[in-house]
């Protein structure tokens, strides 16, 4: 396996990629009109966080790899959240027959 401390790839490369992914997620969160796409944007943000955690774990905490454990928990919770999100979306779709965020205005947003 490669020796990471000697490698050309630095920690920063991973952090930059994660920051980019996070910002794309934020943009999608604000601008998506389809509720499913909002869910997807949130998954992008969570993946950015995981990338951060894994990079830190590998470069700065290589012995104890607590970041990897944290990432496993994030993956678990994200799956639960996605399942609940789908259930709520289905339940709402039965009542409203739309997924357009702008139409969800029974309650003032």
């Amino acid at each position, binding site marked *: 396996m490669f020796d990471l401390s000697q490698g050309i790839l630095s920690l920063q490369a991973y952090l930059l990629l994660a920051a980019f992914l*996070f910002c794309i997620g934020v943009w999608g969160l604000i601008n998506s009109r389809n509720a499913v796409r909002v869910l997807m944007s949130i998954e992008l943000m969570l993946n950015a966080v995981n990338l*951060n955690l894994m990079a*830190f774990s590998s470069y700065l905490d290589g012995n104890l790899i607590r970041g990897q454990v944290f990432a496993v928990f994030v993956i678990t919770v994200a799956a639960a959240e996605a399942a*609940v*999100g789908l259930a709520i979306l289905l339940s709402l779709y039965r009542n409203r027959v739309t997924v357009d965020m702008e139409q969800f205005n029974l309650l*003032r947003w």
Partner: protein
Amino acid sequence: MPEMGALLLVTQTSTAPGELLNLALNAGAVAPEGCVLIAMLGTLLVDLIGEQTAARWAPPICYLGLGSALILLALQWDAPLEPSFLGAFLADKLAIAFRAVVALSTLLSLLISWRYAKQSGSPAGEYAAILLAATLGAMLLCGATDLVSVFVSLETLSVASYLLSGYMKTDARSSEAALKYLLVGSAAAAVFLYGASLLYGISGTTSLASIGISLSNSPTPLAALALVFILSTVAFKIAAVPFHQWTPDVYEGSPTPVVAFLSVGSKAAGFALALRLLVGCFGAFDTQWKLLFTVLAILSMTLGNVVALAQTSMKRMLAYSSIGQAGFVMIGLVCGTEDGFAAMVLYMAAYLFMNLGAFACVILFSIRTGSDRISDYAGLYQKDPLITLGLSLCLLSLGGIPPMIGFFGKIYLFFAGWADHQYLLVVVGLITSVISIYYYISVIKMMVVKEPKEASEVVKTYPPIQWSNVGMPSLRFALLGCVVFTAIGGILSNPLFQWANNTVIGTPLLQQAIAMSNHQSLG
């Protein structure tokens, strides 16, 4: 200071997890949560047998679980303080106090929800199980001392709250509230996680105490960024302006007993989280987060109380009022003195009873009439004196009128703020209190002063009062309990003051922060 950080990293990484296997878990600290968990599983099991059995046995199982959790919490009060689960959880007095508030709020919310669930046709067994899971998450959040535990317990609370707010699935407004809550809440969780990952990167550990030490050694711009991320999530959880937009919608759309839990239990857990993270972890950024929280508190008090004036729906008015109330509690957080923290604990305990009492009355009114509009309460005192009296007392207490318990809580908060020279906060708090009294009184005036012929259509066709239906006796019990405590709690407030002060004295985390701020002000 890279050398310093590297040194710190070496000292922290000396123990491999394999060697930790021999250490004591000290798992007795989470025995109250164990009771809640057993009650949750019991509720699910009786729910498998059938709808009738669940309706019969779920309530006593829940009462038993939550009651024994409260008793175990009381027994923990004087136990020696030891970190449990190898540093993932700490049952200090602060955690015990906030866990008691959470468990009690669940107990009271359950008492008032059986009739509501029955009438709206929702399955009660799963409802109770999910509410107990939310309680479990909130209670563990109050004592979690590790970023991973904080995250998982926060998400348990949040996911359960999303499910609960969408529980009336035939009502489009409930589903819509749940979807909005889910999307905003998951985004907030992702932002929290980004901040948490930065903290992990700075310190190389997930324990809050170690992160606090490493932040005080090297306060970098990265740490400030992590503070902003984490603070926005905390502000979301306690619904501080400008992170409050979800609150009125979720409160209006969700089933009312769920709102009762969210406005007290979830908020108490949020404040415990704020104390753990900001006081325990960001001690090095004391001035920065206090400044940010001052701004949040002023905005919350002003906007919450002013917008509440214009509301026509009772639930929406209580939602905005709860935003304002959170602003008052933040005064104690900003002070950072012994009195400030004690006032926070005291006010949360008082808020538990007065807010749940108000919600019990609102639920009873909506069960009997199906209405939620403030104008429909006109002339109610002739038809239903109990609701009128209970709601009046609770609203007066929320507004801070003596001799209710809310008055003592609020005066203690303002006193603590004044003693710590937070004059701006206290003045804004006083002015907005007066505004809040105005809209609370206008509801009371609506109920009491109107002539019989001016009564609303809903009140004119008011059904005869019955207490014999399923779930009504428990609702009456909760209502009377809350109202009586709100009314006479003020007279008996001395033991409560003692309790709140003991909480702060017995919590090493808060004592350290107080000592540090004293040191700063002297030097």
